[in-house]
């Protein structure tokens, strides 16, 4: 599984690095990434469910107001930041003499973590029961994201 995640870092960036150390480091980062994604998704979806249930429709214009609970998706950046930071810290600790910087790998790990969290959380929002029925289509469904709007 971690090979799949890290197929582009299946080999150490620096050929002088120990392959065993690199493999251990890669597994560690993968574990952090999975954990941060899971926790991130749970937090984002939980907050989304809580706030979307708190939202009420009291006037005819209310269904057309900005759907504020969607803003929790911005929290998907947090697992990315956590993963990126841990990557950098652990990379420096495990490979103190490495000639290659940790930035490239850290950024890619952070992006993967953030985007995965975003995708999973968004997908969960489309599941029945997560979004209240009255806002069922407020998280725009994939096939409607590109739907042509009526003039």
């Amino acid at each position, binding site marked *: 599984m971690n090979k799949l995640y890290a197929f582009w870092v299946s080999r150490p960036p620096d050929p002088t690095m120990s392959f065993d150390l690199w493999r251990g480091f890669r597994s560690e980062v993968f574990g952090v990434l999975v954990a941060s994604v899971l926790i991130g998704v749970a937090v984002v979806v939980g907050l989304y469910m809580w706030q979307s249930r708190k939202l009420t*429709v009291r006037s005819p214009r209310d269904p057309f107001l900005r759907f504020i609970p969607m803003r929790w998706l911005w929290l998907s950046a947090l697992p990315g930041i956590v993963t990126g930071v841990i990557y950098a810290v652990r990379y420096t600790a495990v490979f103190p003499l490495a000639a290659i910087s940790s930035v490239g790998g850290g950024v890619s790990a952070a992006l993967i973590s953030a985007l995965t969290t975003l995708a999973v959380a968004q997908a969960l929002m489309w599941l029945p029961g997560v979004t209240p029925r*009255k806002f069922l289509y407020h998280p725009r469904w994939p096939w409607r994201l590109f739907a042509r709007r009526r003039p």
Partner: protein
Amino acid sequence: MNTLICAGGSGVRVLEAVLQLCAAGLGPASLRLLVIDPDSANGSGARATALVESYLEGHRRFAGRLGDGLQLFQTELDLLDVGGRAAGLKTWSPIEKGQRLREVLNVDLLDSTGTPSELVRLFFTTEEIRMDLTQGFRGHPSVGAAAMSLVTLKTGEQPWRQLIEKLKGDLARDEGARIFLAGSVFGGTGASTFYPIARFLRSVPEVNHNRLKIAAGALSPYFRFEAATAGVDSAASRQAAKAERFPLATRSAVDFYERLRVSAVEKNLPFDVFYWAGDDTPMSVPYAPGGPEQKNPSHFVELLTALAALDFFESPGAVQGSCYAGSNGASDEEACLEWRDLPLARLDREKVRLGLLRFFLAGAVHLGFSGPLVRLPEIDRAPYRVPWYWERFASKGDRLNTEESQAGLEFLDKFFRDHHFPWWTEVHGHTAVRLFNRAAMNGGKDVRLDRLTNLLWPDRAGESDPDAIDAFYTEMMKVPKRQGGAGGAAAYLALLANAADRFIDSRYAKTGSKE
């Protein structure tokens, strides 16, 4: 087939009540209407005519298009229209404009027929003989009865000709003909109509006499006025109906019908059942001798009589003889009218109550929320933002902004705002009426949405639930797709009514108001 004949101002207001109940889905499958009123220009008549026209539009738009189980506007009206004549509610008068009793009875010609004209003076005063009858019989049932008895001479004229033909057609079928006469027994027109018209109708069947069922909804005094305060001249004042005579007139009427019932002419009693309704604390109304100014507000007694009519149409054999209903409310000090006091023999009381509440809720939500919602320009740009609109309309290529749908929505606006809610507000003008919660009614034009969970009496003072409309909105999403109308405004009304049912189940059961 059912026929409702309404006499005089009170009878016409009973017609209004019947139509309101029919709009809520409580009426029979079909109903033939006829109004008897010499004062066809009176304000109540104009209001009823407008309601009939509005109801007909509702029937055309929604009957048979709301899906299973919903009977809103379902009752088909037969207004005895004849080709070549004006369509609409027919008002028959035994009097031609400007006629006096003298002309009606041809008093001047009596001597030439061998009948002394002085004989007329045995029954009528000089003032009665000379009284202009254009604005009704003004509380003189003896004058009215004499004029009404001439109906037998009008059988070749419309609308009687057509009514008689249709009644004969009804009598040829197993279900027969059911006729309900509604009017007051304390005024002029209503009191003078019951017996002459019922006796005439009894003479219609040539065969199957037992298939003709006739009932009378007799309204005893429930309003009063002071003619003297109106500043009318003395002659008119003397001729005018006087509220202080109402009890005496009622007693005379009761005596008359009781005598008919128990005397030797019992077999000639034209009524199968007599429903009596009244109020022990008559409401004060401004005096008007007739014409457009005679426009008394609607009253719960008319609602009771309308329910009696629907009960009779549902099962004409359910009750016989005379029916009375009194309050059995909780308070010992004050007589009141609660749901359990509605005098129903055959109709299911809970069905009546929930049917009226459903229609009330649907109207309230339409006027205050969903009507404005579906007219917002935003709904055209982002229909998915309102899931029920997306699933039931927009995703199927249907829209509520088409000309036809917009007309349907405007009809609902007008019906609820101009007819239904003002009528309920007037019915609740009497504090003893404990059906709906008058605190939730916004002066009769619409209903407070924050009181959606407290539309039934008693008022839970201080309670305000701004999220009640949110709960209703959510119920609209939960209505199964199969419970939908035939598209457009019909599908919209069906959705509102079905959501109202769900809302009642969840909110009114919880608050205990459903019991």
